[in-house]
């Protein structure tokens, strides 16, 4: 398989999940698209190293996580939170109830700490715990405790917002 064909296959299989991870991290559609593009640019550059790897998605996720972490260098956290609020407010009228729930869920995710946002996006996308541990470099035992705590925190934030 040539490089472009392999890349196309990898992109099709992973782009949506990577985009969700970036969206969960930034709370902003444009930034998520930028980060996803940057991630796949790096995937392209490292494609030859991946050819013989069994768990290619683990590497792609790790690149995406690290790309998200470096995004924080230029973006201010406060500005990002304000942006997420603005998205919810301005788009609120035009979206359906289902989409409103999705937007609210993203807003709640944006209230979590950065690591928590990354981990929960992967949990919501149903990645195996062992893979999340491999991607994040956190031990599996420690990760289980973290995930339990984040799930509880996210549910609590969501229910608090939904009441209003």
């Amino acid at each position, binding site marked *: 398989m040539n490089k472009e064909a392999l890349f*196309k296959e990898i992109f099709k299989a992973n782009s949506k999940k990577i985009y969700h991870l970036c969206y969960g991290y930034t709370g902003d559609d444009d930034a*998520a*698209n930028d980060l*996803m*593009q940057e991630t796949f640019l790096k995937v392209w550059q490292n494609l030859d190293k991946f050819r013989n790897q069994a768990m290619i998605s683990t590497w792609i996720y790790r690149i995406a996580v690290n790309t998200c972490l470096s995004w924080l260098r230029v973006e201010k956290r406060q500005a990002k939170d304000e942006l997420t609020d603005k998205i919810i407010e301005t788009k609120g009228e035009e979206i359906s109830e289902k989409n409103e729930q999705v937007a609210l869920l993203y807003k709640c995710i944006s209230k979590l700490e950065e690591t928590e946002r990354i981990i929960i996006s992967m949990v919501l*996308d149903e990645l195996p715990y062992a893979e999340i541990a491999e991607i994040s470099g*956190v031990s599996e035992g420690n990760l289980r405790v973290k995930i339990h705590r984040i799930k509880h925190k996210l549910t609590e934030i969501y229910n608090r917002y*939904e009441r209003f």
Partner: protein
Amino acid sequence: MKDFDALKDIWHSQAAAPKLGYDDILKGIRKSRSNFANKLLFETLGALIASVLFILIWINSPSMMWTTHLSLLVFLICCFYYLFVQFKDYRSISNSEHLLKVPREYIEYLKKYRRNRYVLNTSKYLVYSIFIGLAFGLYFIEIYFSSPLWQTLLGLFAAAIWFIMCWFIMRIYIRKEQEKLSDMIEELERLEKQFGE
């Protein structure tokens, strides 16, 4: 009241999808590669033209004082040093191997990279400016002996103004960079701590 499974259902019902397709990504890859190459080429050409100019002056001026030889040598070393630093930095940016590290190690890399950039943009740049100023000063010694006094004074005055401007701008720049670096390091350490818990 919703439980986590209900949130998971909401997540899976989302229509949010990337705006960019496979073709857009490939276009982006080609564009970024040519942007990178163009910038590198532009800067390399600039430094090379300056180097050739200094070499031509050196060759075409037969009777030179030792101070002028030293001045041109300093200019040339500065040009090559600039070229070397830029090339090394671009190589480091384009090398994405560190992105494959676990997040904690990657954050360590980012901290190190930011610190190195800070040293390069502040202290090293200041030393670089001082050497350029010194080269100008040495060059004007010969001008003093071979040209009318007003030309020497004018040249010295221009060099002094340039030198003072660099010094003032660098002082402001270093202070701002220091603040920016402290914020970034603080932010990165906060992230590092999150991964370590």
